[in-house]
Structure formats: structure tokens, C-alpha cells
């Protein structure tokens, strides 16, 4: 017994040393991992913090606004005249401009974007796709102010030749140009979604004697629904949030109308108008832009949630 103890003791000691040595190394590595993890967490936190800060500013400033203006008036008043002596704060007026111009834009962007995506993904020869996709994406890179002027000085005069009664500032031409601007987003994302549909599904369809069009429309598009839905939601968000084209080409007359041939102000163009104007900070007139901004943000949030739900609902497991 005692003999064996004497023999094993030094062995144990050296073993202990080895173990503690290994442990130390592990601890330093662990430390390094923690530092990296913290940095990554910090980076992620910036976006969360920014969002929270924006929400805080919007909500707290809107709170001040709603101290003076009842929510009922804000939602149901049919006039938006915050700068007049007889001030009215009916957001519906601005909302109608936003919805009308967005509807025009989406009527252009969603069908065209989808058709382009189907063509590029399912029909276009390799070379055509390689050449046309960069051009398409270039369309998305044109500054929106350029689109705005394009609408104002090119499209509106053109439309006036067909409809002489069309005002110089109108939601129609702004919306149409906005639609062109959104096409690349819808087309590019939808095409990605369609190309992600596995070849085995297409082969299955062709092997059943389907034509290319049948395969595209009955198999590929349904299989890519979730991606296409996300593309649409992004397009909608872009349309609702678009500012410059509308500020330049749609006029800034608050106008409760769903007729695209009228001029109108949207939530975004109103915010530009006030933010750049010389209204004193802290006045109710100035405060309106926060309430308008909050409305806009709630709308976009709603669309994002809808998009999230659609993605989950229609996610395809191939």
C-alpha cells in the first residue's frame, strides 16, 4: 500500500500540472471568444438601439401632439390644414395621397416585376439573363430625385397630351414613375425566389408533358410563393415610404382624394415640406410631422409583419 502511494504521488503531481496547464489555455481561449461575442452583440445592439430610439422620439413627440389634438380628430377629420388659423389635423388626407400614389406604383411594379422575374428565371437564355439583370438593377440605383424630375418634366407633359385636364403636379405620373423605380426590387427578389426552386420540381413537371409556361406558372411560381410575397411586401414598403418623387412631381397640396389625376400630398412629402420649412420647433404645426411619421412607421411595421407571416405561412420545404 505505502509503496504504491510513494510511486504514484509524483505521477499524480505531474498529471495535476498538465491538467491545470490545459485549463489555463482553455480559459484564455474562452476569454477571446467572450470578447468576440461581446463585439458581435454590440454590433447587433446598434440596430436594435437605433430602432428603439426612433420609436421613442416618435412616440414621445407624438404624445405632445396628441395632448393638443384628440386622436379622434387625427383619424377622422377630413381636412389637413395644420398651418392655418383654423387648423385641422385629419391624417386621412395625407394617407389618401400615400395610398393612391402607392396603388398606382404597385399596379405598375407588381405585374411587370413578376413577369420580368418569370421571364428571366424560366425563359431567358443564359446570355440574355446575364446582360439584362445588371441593367435591371441599375434601374434601382437611379437616385429618386432624378425619377422625380423625370415624372415632372417628361411623363406629366406626355400624359397631358392624352388628358389635357391633368394638372402639372399629379399623383398619377409620380405613381407611375415610382412603379418603374420599384420594378427592379420586385423582379430581382422574385427571380431569386424562383431560381431557388429546385430543378427536380421543374423536371417533374416537364416529365408530365407540361410546357414551359405551364411549368413556370403552375409549379415554379407556386413553389416560390413565399419569396415572391416578400418581394411584394418590400415593394409596398418602398412605395409607401417613397418621398422625393412625390415631393417633386405630385405637388404638396393636401387633398383628400383617391383620384390619381389629382395633385396631392403624401405623408412623406408633407414631412419634407415641414422639416425644410421655417416652422418654429415645438409648435403644434411642427409636432405634426412626428404624428405623421409614427403613422408611416406603423404602416410599414404592419407590412413587415404581414411579410413575415406570409413567409412562414408559405415557406416551401423542398
Amino acid at each position, binding site marked *: 500500500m505505502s509503496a504504491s502511494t510513494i510511486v504514484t504521488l509524483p505521477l499524480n503531481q505531474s498529471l495535476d500540472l498538465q491538467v491545470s496547464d490545459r485549463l489555463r489555455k482553455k480559459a484564455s481561449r474562452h476569454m477571446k471568444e467572450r470578447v468576440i461575442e461581446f463585439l458581435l452583440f454590440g454590433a447587433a445592439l446598434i440596430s436594435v438601439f437605433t430602432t428603439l430610439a426612433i420609436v421613442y422620439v416618435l412616440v414621445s413627440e407624438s404624445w405632445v401632439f396628441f395632448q393638443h389634438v384628440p386622436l379622434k380628430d387625427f383619424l377622422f377629420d377630413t381636412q389637413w390644414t395644420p398651418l392655418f388659423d383654423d387648423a385641422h389635423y385629419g391624417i386621412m388626407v395625407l394617407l389618401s395621397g400615400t395610398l393612391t400614389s402607392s396603388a398606382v406604383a404597385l399596379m405598375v411594379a407588381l405585374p411587370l416585376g413578376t413577369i420580368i422575374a418569370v421571364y428571366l428565371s424560366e425563359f431567358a437564355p443564359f446570355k440574355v439573363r446575364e446582360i439584362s439583370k445588371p441593367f435591371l438593377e441599375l434601374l434601382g440605383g437611379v437616385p429618386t430625385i432624378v425619377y422625380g424630375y423625370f415624372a415632372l418634366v417628361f411623363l406629366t407633359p406626355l400624359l397631358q397630351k392624352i388628358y389635357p385636364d391633368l394638372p402639372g403636379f399629379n399623383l398619377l405620373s409620380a405613381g407611375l414613375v415610382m412603379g418603374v423605380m420599384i420594378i427592379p426590387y420586385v423582379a430581382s427578389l422574385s427571380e431569386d425566389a424562383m431560381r431557388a426552386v429546385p430543378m*427536380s420540381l421543374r*423536371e*417533374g413537371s*416537364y*416529365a408530365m*408533358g407540361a410546357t414551359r409556361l405551364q411549368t413556370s406558372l*403552375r*409549379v415554379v411560381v407556386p413553389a416560390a*410563393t413565399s419569396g415572391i410575397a416578400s418581394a411584394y411586401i418590400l415593394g409596398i414598403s418602398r412605395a409607401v415610404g417613397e418621398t422625393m418623387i412625390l415631393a417633386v412631381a405630385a405637388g404638396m397640396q393636401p387633398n383628400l382624394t383617391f383620384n390619381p389625376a389629382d395633385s396631392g400630398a403624401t405623408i412623406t412629402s408633407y414631412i419634407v415640406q415641414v422639416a425644410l420649412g421655417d416652422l418654429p420647433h415645438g409648435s403644434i404645426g411642427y409636432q405634426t410631422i412626428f404624428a405623421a411619421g409614427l403613422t408611416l412607421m406603423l404602416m410599414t411595421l404592419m407590412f413587415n409583419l404581414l411579410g413575415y407571416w406570409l413567409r412562414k405561412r408559405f415557406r*416551401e420545404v423542398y
Partner: protein
Amino acid sequence: MSNATTINMDADPKLAIKAECRNFNFHYGDFQALKGINMPVYDKKITSLIGPSGCGKSTLLRSFNRMHDLYPGNRYGGEIVMHPDNTNLLAKEVDPIEVRMRISMVFQKPNPFPKSVFENVAYSLRVRGINNKSELEDRVQHSLKGAALWDEVKNRLNDLGANLSGGQQQRLCIARALASDPEIILFDEPTSALDPIATASIEELVVELCEKVTILIVTHNMQQAARISDFTAYMYLGELIEYGVTDQVFIKPKNKQTEDYITGRFG
């Protein structure tokens, strides 16, 4: 090259020939994947194509319904003639869509469409312009019965096809292939993604099907070829090495290469 094929049949089987490859060559770009294939496919029999990976068996199978036309850079020569009408399926003036209406296919991995069970089967009818509800219902039910799936899915026809089990999905794909009443069904390793029980049910089904339809099947599993097929073709490096009655090819292969492959002494 074609002369190299060893024929392993005691006598002419006196069966009707459903389709026939005549000096069929195939190129993927510059690579020649199939070299001078001559092979009969007998009517309402099961013919299996076996051979190591890359031997060209799937390429040959996919030539029958012109799947290769979907990809640029594929070239082929020779003929695949379908009987009794003596049509060369590969001829320029033959529409591949018409070919695929007569020759259906089941793939390696079950690939149900993102549609309901019913619509998956109805698909091959709808693309032919059949939209009459009662006719669709009849034929879908008939096909699902033919694929031995009806009893399992009759109460869930509106479920997504993807929600079925792997074996059920593959039978759904077989039902889909059956719906259009094809003359030949091509099977490209239909059980390689399935467990042994699902495999057994698919094999049983394939054997039943050959009463009504001609079957050409690619398989990696030699036991499977031996179990279910009437004729076997052994391919290697793009050539048809030996062709004959399955029992003879497996028990008394005439070609040394076939023997090595079948007995596992290959390579």
C-alpha cells in the same frame, strides 16, 4: 462499338418490342456519355439498367423522354424508335412534349409539386387540358389506386403532397405518372431515397404495374434488378456491355466484365 454488346438470351423471347435504341450516341458538350447503344425494350416487361456510377444508365433513361432537351449543350445521335407506330422519338419534327405524354417518369427523390395530393395527380391531366371535375376525380382516384396509395390518402386529398411520408410521396409521384395513361414509365433509381419497407412496397408496385405498362428502371441495387426485372442491361463507361434475360445475366453472365460487377469483384 455496338458489336461489343454481349447478348445473353437463349432464344428470341418472341415478345413485342415497345421501344428500341438504334446506334444511340450521347454527348454532354465534348464528353461522349453513351456510345452506340443498341437495345430493345420489351412490351409490358421490366427492363433494368445497372452499372457503376457514371456509366450512363441515367443518361440513357432520360433520353427516352427527351429530358436532355431541357439543357443546352447536350447532343445526341442515332434513334430511339417506339413501336407499334415506329416513331423515332428523337426526330427533330417530333415534339418532346408529345413524347413525354406517352412516356412518363418517376425520379430518384420524390418530387411532389407544392400542391395538394389531388392536384399533384391531376397535374398531368390538367396540362393536357382536362379540367372536367368528374373526369379528374375518376382518373385521380384510379391512378391513386393503381399506385396503391388510395386507401392511405383518400381522406386527405387536400393535404399538401409534401406532408406525406417519403414512401407515400414516391407512390404519389407514381400515381402522377400513371394518371396520363402512359405507354412506358421510366424509373430513375426510384427507391434510393427510401427505407427498406417503403422500397419493398415500391418494388411490389412496379411489378404490378408491368401488367399494364412497359417499365424501364435504373437501379444501383443489383438485388433489386434481380428481384423485379425481366431483362437486364449492364452498362459500363457509356457502353452496353451485356443485355439479356435477368436470370441469365445474374446467374450465368457471359461477359467477364458483367460477372466481375455482379459478383462484386469489380474494379
